[in-house]
């Protein structure tokens, strides 16, 4: 069983939950940017958690199945079509040998996930099948899919009984053009003036065209750093600190005008002052924003972040239960 790539789309990559335990050698996790949509896809097709699927960005690919398969498409509103006929999302679908999957134009969100029963079977690199786009490792030959690629699919057995299963409407996330992203302020936030920290939280930021798996850049406000004599080793720019580790989801403001949220394929450390971190649950929502969408950052404490995490965990357990 294989998936043939007739057209690759804008950026289609193999992803799973990610590559953990290697941050200390400078290896970011990679993995699905919207974990919720990706995982629910696996639930729908009856895969084990962590089976690899495809992350489809902005503009969909054209894919052909060489054998009968059970699939599901979750995530953004990027309407799928099977042999030209519109097909539902967040629902388990059957495709037959020779069927062609295409996508209509993106309506909302930014990333769709294709789960296939058996999982996409590329070789593991450091215990993960995720593609690390920044330097080209993992996934399918370390890169986004290209025309003519053929992806092996793992053995799935007969899963036809799952066809027609669907995620309840109220569980399906809706992605508008405005997002509120929760952050925990901290790290080197003492480098920003109090007024600038307020500006950061009060500003409606616009996602720039520079928004990808490495990070998202925003425009809309100007932030200032507290004046200081730069400490030893930091370098002379006020945005510089002695090079430090960057958490996934951390926010930095080189030059004061373009906040960057670092994401799954980002650099793991560097010399720019970090001012806070997007909470893990909201990385999913952030990953569904796109160029020109509006974003506000709201400051929360750890307790709220952990509560959101727990609620998400329960929600996913419910969905999984309902689909089992």
């Amino acid at each position, binding site marked *: 069983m294989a998936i043939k790539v007739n057209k690759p789309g804008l950026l289609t990559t193999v992803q799973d939950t990610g590559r953990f335990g290697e941050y200390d050698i*400078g290896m970011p996790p990679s993995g699905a940017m919207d974990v919720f949509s990706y995982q629910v896809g696996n639930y729908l097709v009856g895969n084990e958690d962590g089976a690899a699927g495809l992350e489809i960005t902005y503009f969909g690919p054209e894919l052909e199945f060489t054998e009968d398969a059970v699939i599901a498409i979750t995530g953004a509103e990027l309407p799928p079509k099977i042999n030209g006929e519109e097909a539902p999302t967040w629902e388990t679908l059957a495709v037959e040998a020779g069927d062609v999957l295409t996508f209509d134009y993106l309506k909302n969100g930014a990333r769709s996930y294709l789960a296939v029963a058996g999982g996409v079977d590329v070789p593991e690199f450091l215990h993960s099948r995720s593609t690390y786009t920044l330097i080209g*490792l993992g996934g399918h030959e370390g890169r986004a899919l290209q025309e003519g690629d053929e992806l092996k699919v793992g053995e799935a057995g007969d899963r036809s009984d799952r066809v027609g299963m669907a995620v309840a409407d109220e569980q399906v996330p809706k992605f508008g053009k405005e997002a509120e992203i929760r952050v925990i302020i*901290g*790290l080197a936030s003492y480098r920003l003036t109090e007024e600038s920290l307020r500006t950061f939280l009060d500003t409606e930021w616009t996602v720039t065209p520079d928004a990808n798996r490495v990070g998202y850049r925003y425009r809309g406000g100007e932030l200032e750093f507290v004046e200081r004599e730069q400490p030893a080793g930091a*370098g002379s720019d006020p945005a510089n600190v002695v*090079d430090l580790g960057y958490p996934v*989801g951390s926010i930095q403001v080189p030059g004061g005008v373009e906040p960057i949220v670092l994401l799954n394929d980002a650099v793991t450390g560097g010399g720019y002052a970090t001012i806070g971190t997007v909470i893990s649950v909201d990385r999913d929502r952030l990953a569904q924003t796109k160029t020109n969408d509006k974003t506000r950052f709201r400051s929360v404490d750890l307790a709220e972040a*952990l509560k959101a995490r727990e609620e998400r965990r329960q929600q996913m357990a419910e969905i999984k239960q309902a689909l089992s």
Partner: protein
Amino acid sequence: MSREAQTELPEARYSYGGDEFVFVELAEGMSLKVNFRAMAITNRLREENLEGVMDICPSNASYMVRVDPDVLHPDDLISRLKEIDEEAGDIAGFELPTRVVDVPVMMEDPWTHEALMRFRDRHQDPDATDLEYSARINGYDNKDDFIAALLGSPWLVTMIGFVPGLPWCYQLVPPEEQVEVPKYVRPRTFTPERAFGFGGGFAVIYSVQGAGGYQLYGLAPAPVLDVKQELKDFEDSIVFPKPGDIFNYRGIDREEFDEIRARVEDKTFEYRTRPFTFHPDRSLEDPHGYNKEILGVLYGD
């Protein structure tokens, strides 16, 4: 002496990096002392094998821990980290079992020269090379004296990251001899793989080709990252440098550069390394004397 080392450092800043990271800034400024403290704490934390700790990342004057908050509450981790700092953060008597490594570098090589000339418009001083500029602002009469200083004393690997395998190195010399340079005004879009660069107070080897803002001085013939793990030094990990390694950057000419490249190509290259137990307090007391001893261990046989 070492008591002082402890009390001189400011209070650490503990901070949440979202719900999945704890970030601890031990000091705003870089010093060997603060890096030793970060290393002592993270080494101890690693030994404890705490459930829920996913990644332990020592950095220059700080460190970061990735935690699974469903298993270990970040506040509980922070409490433990504060205890560890009490117990291990005083570097008196701290010993670091490590290795000392010969790292050949060709300074003023043609490849990084071409790269830096391409991006003069992004540099503080478009009319000088990165070496000429750096020598001047650090008070050296000429670039050769500056190069001699960089190659004259060994370096401590204080952090790994940015991209896989990239080592940040801080020279084992007294504060007044530390070199410091700004990063490019705007980062380059291209840096050759294995370029030897410098930014802030740190020397690096770019492990992969890519963007970068550090001043460019030379090129290393041997890799620090080998994702196919074809060289012997990479049998256990795709990455060669480890925090706490002591690197001696040794200047080489074009002939030796080509010779090492050939050995890398035919997979026979191995770094010259010697095991070494590093005593931070000795390095702080008499850096140059201790460096002689370190280099004796590396090249003595």
